[in-house]
């Protein structure tokens, strides 16, 4: 059983597109990266999974429960860090965290103090007095407090300084080591690369690719750069070659497939220099958006 099972999920807001025909699975214990630029449909997908909004068509199950009809049961085991954090302004941090924790069975006082200490969060301040970054910290503690089985993180690092980001990533890794499944949405590829085991790439509301992060980087794509005189882009028009660019006497392209095909082509030429390397996620990503 997958922890998240999304099938042909579609959401339109009136006529404007939210997401179209999105399908994917997230397995127990993995950190699933969900990347795409702003407006691609990342938050829409998460909000559908949390039953804040309802799908136009298609279905989604979390813990094998239907998101439309069984939302409250699903949310018993979920922690959510929204991209923008808003809480009841008049409350103190500690009262808000206690209020949140009171909806879940168990005593989380010790955990609350542990987490606040790690994130350097002052518990006695009023929510309305907090800066954006500090509100985000409240969100992190609130999301992790009740030891959920599944974490939804929507652009979690915005507003956190690099030191806090590192502490936050460590926290997420610790949670994951305890078996917590993480759904990590971001448009910053570096952090997805650091943390995730698999990624889904969403583009204009549609899932462009779902792939193991290693195979995405190592097995599937190579970034090839050839320097030679009299280069012709047509020479490399073979299956698997994409994104050919000629600049300053060098030819750049991505290749997916049997690398020997490319080597044979190159072998027949007199080249000045050749590099074949793994593209960064950033480059793969750009490639999907062109």
């Amino acid at each position, binding site marked *: 059983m997958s922890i998240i099972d999304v099938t042909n999920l579609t959401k339109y*807001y009136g006529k404007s597109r939210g997401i179209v025909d999105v399908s994917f699975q997230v397995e127990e214990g993995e950190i699933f990266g969900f990347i795409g630029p702003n407006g691609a449909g990342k938050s829409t997908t998460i*909000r559908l999974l*949390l039953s*804040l*909004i*309802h799908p136009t068509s298609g279905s989604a199950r979390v813990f094998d429960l239907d998101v439309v009809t069984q*939302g*409250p*049961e699903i*949310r*018993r085991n*979920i922690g*959510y860090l*929204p991209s*923008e954090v*808003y*809480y*009841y*302004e*008049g409350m103190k941090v500690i009262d808000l965290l206690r*209020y*949140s924790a*009171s*909806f*879940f069975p168990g005593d989380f006082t010790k955990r609350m103090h542990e987490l606040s200490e790690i994130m350097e969060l002052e518990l006695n301040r009023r929510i309305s007095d907090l800066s954006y970054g500090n509100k985000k910290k409240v969100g992190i503690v*609130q999301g992790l407090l009740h030891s959920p089985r599944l974490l939804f993180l929507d652009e979690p690092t915005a507003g956190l300084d690099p030191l806090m980001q590192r502490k936050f990533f460590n926290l997420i890794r610790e949670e994951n080591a305890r078996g917590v499944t993480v759904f990590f949405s971001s448009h910053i590829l570096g952090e997805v690369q650091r943390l995730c085991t698999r990624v889904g790439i969403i583009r204009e509301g549609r899932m462009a690719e779902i792939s193991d992060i290693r195979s995405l980087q190592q097995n599937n794509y190579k970034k090839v750069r050839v320097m030679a005189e009299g280069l012709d882009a047509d020479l490399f028009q073979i299956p698997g070659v994409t994104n050919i660019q000629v600049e300053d006497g060098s030819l750049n392209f991505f290749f997916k497939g049997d690398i020997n095909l490319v080597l044979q082509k190159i072998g027949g030429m007199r080249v000045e220099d050749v590099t074949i390397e793994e593209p960064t996620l950033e480059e793969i990503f750009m490639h999907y958006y062109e």
Partner: protein
Amino acid sequence: MRIFIRELKANFKSLLIWSVVLFLLIMIAVAKFSAFFENPEMLSMLDSIPPAMLDALDMRSFNLTTLSGFYGFMFIYFGLMGAMAAAMWGSDIISKEERDKTVEFSLVLPVSRSQVITAKALAALVNCIGFVLITWIVSIIAVQQYNPDKAFFDFLALEMQAMFVLEMIFLAIGLLLGCAMKHYKRSGSTAVAIILTTYFLSILSGMEEKLDFLKYLTPFKYFDAGNMFRTGQMESIYLIISICIVLVCVFGAYWIYNRRDLYI
């Protein structure tokens, strides 16, 4: 239960402010009343006011030089305040979560939307009951100087019951607006617009016989203080209409809120 208590705390200030306004209204009105009280000159002055004007202000039914008459005249203002407060509480208690963008917190907790509405509606209900009780108590204290008789207290009790029913109608309407309107900014103003429209309808229906049918459209006419004063009770047909309005609105609120997308 936790949502209910949190909402009570969050709305306590609002109840306090409304109560202070009401307290001032009653105190000023009762102070003014001292000029009317058992004053024959006032009676003849009131007789000289054009009848249409009296109709518009609903002053014809009452002898303003008696305490009961004066309180009959005051009823519409209690009703208006109660309706206003109830409608604001009803719509705001739901829509504020979207206005303040806290839905991404409060509705990601393991509670159903129906549970949220129930807890919040009960908190608003407590406020409405509190508001009526405060009106009642302040009135009793304020009129002590005129040595009111039992008939006055009975009439006051009836007025307060009618005010409560008015509150319930507008609380339910407010709740429905808060649950149904995605544009949270408009739910409060729509509620006020409905109150003012129905209030003016009630004035119109009193002024012109041809417009008498309007009385079914405006809750403010359901509990006409003059009628209540004469009959000593609320008319059952209007009580039934009121209950129907409340049930339809509350049912609609649950139905819509459970189905619609939250505005984030």
